[in-house]
């Protein structure tokens, strides 16, 4: 299989490998980078994102931490005070709630309250998202909490190249970044891609990408639901509508321009994410667009999100409350036919 993949000198790699490479390359490049988390060293991480890292960089730079999310974040902050860049792994992004205060009050505000004296180059990353039967505490997309907490950048890639490129950019950014990795994409074969290294690989924070061009309706999303939007776009094309799919990739800061430029042509907007609806980022995009680009909207902007429920465990319930290509298609058709 490996040899098959190497045909014509290209090796396609998955989303997880992309993240792994980004972190390992940055550890190599930046002697002041440290990794902290639960089971990231000896075990190599619950999903293996940090596999082999401790062997290579030692126990001092790759720290197996006690189960203490608040301390992990706070200690990372202290290391930043002393010149370090820290990658913090949350074993599942759901556990970020246990380190919440240290993130929103200590870390996010450090630059602000010191009038720019202190920078906290920190990436807090972890497996996120539903659709895998992870239930309430292994399925969350809780990015809205952090988007509403000034001082944090928020990132969520949907492809291996973006995963690698945004991770490198995040690890070089002087600000704290909350990085949502979609665990259902970690080993997804269909989305594997060739990857660059180092500077070549970088995908700058704050730039959206157009995943599919179209003319009739703009579907805006990030993470797992980008793939559902692409599927919906297929469905829509069968119905005679051409959908543009925008993957915002970075939530904070948001590349509003790319969305508005698209709307100037399509005049129709559907925003999709898998977080709970109320105060979620889908609504944020609708709010911005309604205020900033009202004149380009020929139909009500719509959103397709998780219902305002936790993520339940068993499959039928889980799918019931989450977005799907069908639900997106339906929303887009309503907007197109408005």
């Amino acid at each position: 299989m490996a040899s098959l993949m190497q045909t014509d000198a290209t090796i396609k790699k998955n989303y997880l490998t992309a993240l792994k490479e980004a972190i390992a390359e940055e550890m190599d490049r930046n002697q002041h980078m440290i990794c902290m988390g639960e089971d990231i060293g000896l075990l190599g991480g619950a999903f293996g994102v940090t596999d082999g890292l401790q062997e290579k960089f030692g126990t001092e730079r790759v720290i197996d931490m006690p189960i203490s999310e608040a301390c992990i974040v706070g200690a990372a902050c202290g290391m930043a005070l002393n010149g370090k860049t820290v990658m913090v792994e949350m074993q599942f992004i759901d556990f970020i709630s246990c380190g919440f205060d240290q993130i929103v009050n200590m870390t996010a505000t450090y630059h602000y309250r010191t009038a720019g004296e202190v920078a906290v180059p920190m990436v807090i990353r972890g497996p996120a998202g539903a659709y895998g039967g992870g239930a309430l505490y292994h399925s969350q997309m809780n990015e809205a909490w952090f988007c509403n907490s000034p001082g944090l950048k928020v990132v969520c890639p949907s492809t291996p190249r973006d995963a690698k490129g945004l991770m490198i950019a995040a690890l070089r950014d002087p600000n704290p970044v909350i990085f949502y990795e979609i665990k259902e994409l970690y080993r997804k074969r269909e989305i594997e891609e060739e990857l660059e290294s180092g500077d070549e690989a970088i995908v700058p924070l704050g730039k959206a990408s157009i995943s599919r061009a179209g003319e009739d309706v703009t579907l805006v999303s990030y993470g797992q639901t980008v793939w559902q939007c692409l599927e919906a776009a297929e469905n829509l094309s069968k119905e005679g509508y051409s959908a543009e799919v925008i993957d915002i990739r970075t939530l904070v800061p948001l590349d509003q321009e790319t969305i508005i430029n698209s709307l100037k042509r399509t005049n129709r907007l559907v925003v999709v994410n898998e977080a709970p609806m109320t105060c979620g980022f889908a609504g944020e995009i609708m709010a911005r667009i309604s205020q900033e680009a009202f004149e380009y909207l020929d139909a009500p902007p719509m959103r397709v999100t998780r219902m305002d429920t936790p993520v339940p465990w068993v499959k039928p319930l889980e799918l019931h409350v989450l977005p799907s290509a069908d639900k997106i298609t339906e929303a887009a058709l309503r907007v197109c036919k408005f």
Partner: protein
Amino acid sequence: MATTTERQPSEKSRPRDLLSPQDYQEMLAQLYLARYFDVRLIKEKKRGRLRGTLYSSHNQEAVIVGSLFGLRSDDWISPIHRDMPAFFLKDARAGWRNKERIGMSIDEVCGQVWGRATSPGRARDNWSHIGSTRAKIIHSTSMLAGTIPAAAGVVYADRLNGGNSVVLTFNGEGSTAQGVFHEAINFAAVHKLPVITIIENNHWAYGTPTELEYSLPDFARRADGYGIPGLIADGQDVLDVYDKVMTAVEHARAGHGPSIVECKTFRAYGHGDHDDDRAAKYRPAKEVDEGRRRDPIAIMKANMVKAGLMTKADAKKYAAENKGASEVHDTDFPEDVVAYLTEGVTSALKAPVPSAEEGAMWVFREDA
């Protein structure tokens, strides 16, 4: 003679000495039940009849059985991922099949494992995240140590209501590093609440060894920071666990407040079954060999033989001990144990999966 005399008083006063021969038999049966539950789930998964991650309690059964055995039916418990058998063993002395007992039925527990509508939580959250106010089992989230505050609250309220129940929370040793562990035990100590914190020290928190979790070898020492008793039990010896936990329970029931009971035990497999292969790499083989050798079923049998409660021949009859899940057979377990579990599994397989619409239900209680 002198040594014997010296040992007598403490031995005499051990809680186990009040147990009857039937109690010993029942304890052993519960060890089989716990073991067989684990083994059976692994077999079901291998057969393709079960999905999801299994967190094995294999070889940790004595902690569960010994902790629960002496509780009153109105006492509360809060088990976690590695204590699955605790859900149906609570109040099991009142009869496994007794529907009136204050614990969960095997149907409910299997209903949960299989994600069926018969789960006490209608399978809305997974694995060990069930509970019941009727059964007096606190529902945990995934966040480790997260139920200890609730446990303290439960008994605070009970005391106010005129009750004197105690609560047992189960925790892996790694979980004791969580801030909320400290906050809750501090609160319980201040108010002398009957909160007993069981620490199942199996030396590993997922892939992290105890040296990286805590600066002392005995997690019972965490108690010293609160001025409360910190007891250590041989977690492979159900009688020793029973003694130590009952000592803590009596202390609590008498109004003297919380205790910590560390049970030294051993995790037979990986963190979850997805981790079995990797565990073989990060965990020294020697440690595994030594750990596996101390099987709680074997230890209990030896104690019973020694106490004259079992013949050596009888002890050989159900030879579940010292066997991995793949080596052990149904015939290594008492027939009623196998039958009990089989009923649970059968009922779960027949039970309906909740309907999709339930996903949107019960976000709020509507009878405001």
